[in-house]
């Protein structure tokens, strides 16, 4: 399994930066596709944190409201990441991707998009 398979894809890395996620990671996408082990400080090149799965789990809250829990489920060809309501089993947010890091990134992006709506609905902890 290569490093590229273990970090968030470039397009999602760009979106994470767009929504204001702090760019602190072990790896970075730079110059379009290259991956660097250490932070790149090229003023003329855009860099994006290539977050690993562990780093992305740190960016996701354990819960987004009462009785909800972050859960990751493995299927044969897809990863499903979501918040589950522990009482009624409802899914609050669901991100499905072939790559685990992308699924986690998808949920983080979803959280930023719907944060305002969740707060209106009474959820806290975002």
């Amino acid at each position, binding site marked *: 399994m290569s490093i590229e398979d*273990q970090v968030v894809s470039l397009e999602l890395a760009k979106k994470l930066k767009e929504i204001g996620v702090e760019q602190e990671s072990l790896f970075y996408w730079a110059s379009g596709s290259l991956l660097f082990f250490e932070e790149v400080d090229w003023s003329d090149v855009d860099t994006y944190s290539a977050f690993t799965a*562990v*780093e992305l789990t*740190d960016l996701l809250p*354990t819960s987004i409201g009462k009785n909800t*829990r972050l859960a*990751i*489920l493995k299927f044969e060809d897809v990863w499903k990441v979501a918040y589950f309501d522990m009482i009624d089993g409802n899914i609050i947010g669901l991100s499905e991707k072939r790559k685990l890091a992308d699924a986690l990134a998808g949920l983080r992006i979803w959280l930023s998009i719907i944060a305002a709506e969740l707060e209106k609905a009474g959820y806290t902890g975002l």
Partner: protein
Amino acid sequence: MDIEDQVVSVELAKKLKEVGIGCNEYQPETIWRWKALQPFGWYVGESILRTLGEWAPAFTVAELMEQLPAVIETKAGRYRLTIEKYEPRWYVSYIGTAGDALESVLNKKLADALGEMQIWVVKNGYVEVEE
């Protein structure tokens, strides 16, 4: 977060190697390895850079998750790999359709919880390991 925080702890890495996971010296199954450097101790380095001293496979979370079977089937039913975060611990379980757990391990470090589950899976014969 350092690389040491993102891979299995060294003692668990040694146990994984003992049960035959990531033990191929010449064809690394992991990007990283724990390497013993006397007298300083253990550090994480790239697997492709061979070392003369003792080593153990420093599996990442992604590598362990990839290796673990998505589903375990027993006579009692089908159990799916499920990872849940209950601050401050991670629960790694095989959960049945009725919500029952075939096995569950918990650890503050996700990589270690997955590593412990990997050992359980191998010891119970759910994953074949090269001799």
